[in-house]
């Protein structure tokens, strides 16, 4: 449909249809955090298992939501699995940078506003890969919250 091809890229729909790392992990040893989008009722649960070396050796995603929040979570799970916690944090920054281009303080928790980060520096060496497909979301500001929901939840679980 004209105007929507930037939002609903094939790779996004693919992750939506066939979400990766879907499920639960036992807690403990895994950590768990929940994120809500009060706007549309979307809910993401992120399970994270980190080994002694600080490597994310397993991740699982629960909850439900729209194509954007689900595919973003799925792509995120792929991107962080096997990465160090430190790299995951850099990815969060990089992804938020990707999203914040047109972001304004339009609702929800406002945490997206004015990140003011050094995107180049922080995401140095980080490959967003498939996640680049979500770039089109910035043309639909209301959906940015959907795309960032899993990432905010990841940040939460990392901070615990």
């Amino acid at each position, binding site marked *: 449909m004209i105007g929507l091809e930037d939002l609903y890229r094939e790779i996004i729909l693919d992750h939506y249809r066939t979400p990766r790392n879907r499920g639960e992990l036992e807690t403990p040893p895994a950590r768990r955090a929940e994120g809500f989008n009060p706007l*549309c009722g979307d809910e993401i649960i992120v399970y994270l298992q980190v080994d002694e070396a600080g490597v994310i050796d397993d991740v699982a995603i629960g909850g*439900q*939501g729209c*194509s954007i929040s689900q595919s973003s979570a799925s792509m995120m799970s792929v991107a962080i699995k096997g990465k160090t916690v430190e790299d995951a944090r850099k990815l969060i920054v990089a992804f938020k940078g990707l999203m914040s281009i047109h972001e304004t303080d339009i609702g929800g928790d406002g945490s997206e506003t004015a990140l003011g980060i050094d995107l180049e520096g922080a995401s140095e060496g980080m490959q967003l890969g498939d996640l680049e497909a979500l770039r089109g979301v910035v043309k639909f500001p209301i959906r940015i919250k959907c795309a960032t929901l899993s990432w905010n939840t990841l940040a939460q679980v990392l901070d615990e």
Partner: protein
Amino acid sequence: MALRSTVKSDFPLLDQQFHGHQLVYLDSANTSQKPQAVIDAMTDYYETTNANVHRGSYELAVRATDALEGARAKVGAFINAESNSEIVFTKNATESMNLLAHCWGEHSLKAGDAVVISEMEHHANIVPWHMLRARKGIELRWIPVDASGHLDLSDLDRLLDGAKLLSVTAMSNVLGTLNPIAALAERAHDAGALMVVDASQYVPHVPTDVQALGADFLVFTGHKMLAPMGIGVLWARAEHLEAMPPFLGGGEMILSVTKDGFTTNDVPWKFEAGTPMVAEAVGLGAAVDYLSDLGMSNVRQHEVELTAYALRTLTERHGDKITIHGPAEPAERGGVMSFAYADVHPHDVAQVLDQSGIAVRAGHHCAKPLMDVLGTSATSRASLYVYNDKSDLDKLADALSAVDDIFSF
């Protein structure tokens, strides 16, 4: 349809395009659009009449006071209140319900007392009771919703046993269900409980007579009935208002203030602290005039016919793909149609429809407990009002095919 055919042209906002399509506004259960007459009434107020009320002795202030109290009288007549002093202006239905929970609740409930609500309530008729539970230790009981989208009243006697209050929506903002308020009020009274009606979705769409409904309290909100945002109403029987302590403290609501204390003004002003929203009241008065001119039973008939058309058309065009929640019979419901489309998430449905200029809401509609009952986290919702017609519903049916194109796999 009994409404005059020129209604749509009274609403300037509807005459615009989105993404290259004429706007089709199907989100009136969320907020309604405003006819020119309402917009003009507010503009005129600010250009000719604006002053603070109940305070000035000059002519302009007298006119502003008359404008406020005249609007109160219009609202009172619209719902057939016994007296204008039963009409309290608030900022929205949510404040009305909180006022009730604070003033009546704090005053008349004690730990262990039960308040009965239903599973189809809007958060405005849930959260204030949760908060009161936290403050006072009341018990909250829930009338279940059955598979047909009606209240399941089979256990009502037990739920009402020893209850002090029954608070139920007159029309569900998700399912469209019209609840049997007069009968519920009678059963509440028989059980020794008072009856609260959340009429936020009812007063805008159905002829309303508070005396016939037999309830004790009724709340609604201006912006869903062609009136401006920023104004709501609490109607209550005078005896209850008299007995209730005040809500917010400040100007307008006092007779006298000293360093030691204060005495309250008479009702309804006792509950209207601070400078009231006069322009919004004037707008609400104009909306009431507009709706009365159309005729509320014509409004209702229009929506029943349109709902019937919508249910038929959507089912014919989309068959099994679409599941419309709520009562199947148009006469038992309002024009609020929540639906699931295949397994496409409502947010995606709304996004695709927006691309065709169609505004529907996706989400939990501030009714999360009902979402739990429906076993979902969100629905898509198309809702109707006086300015909608069959062509809007045809366009909705068309645009849903685009949803199918993108998401069927």
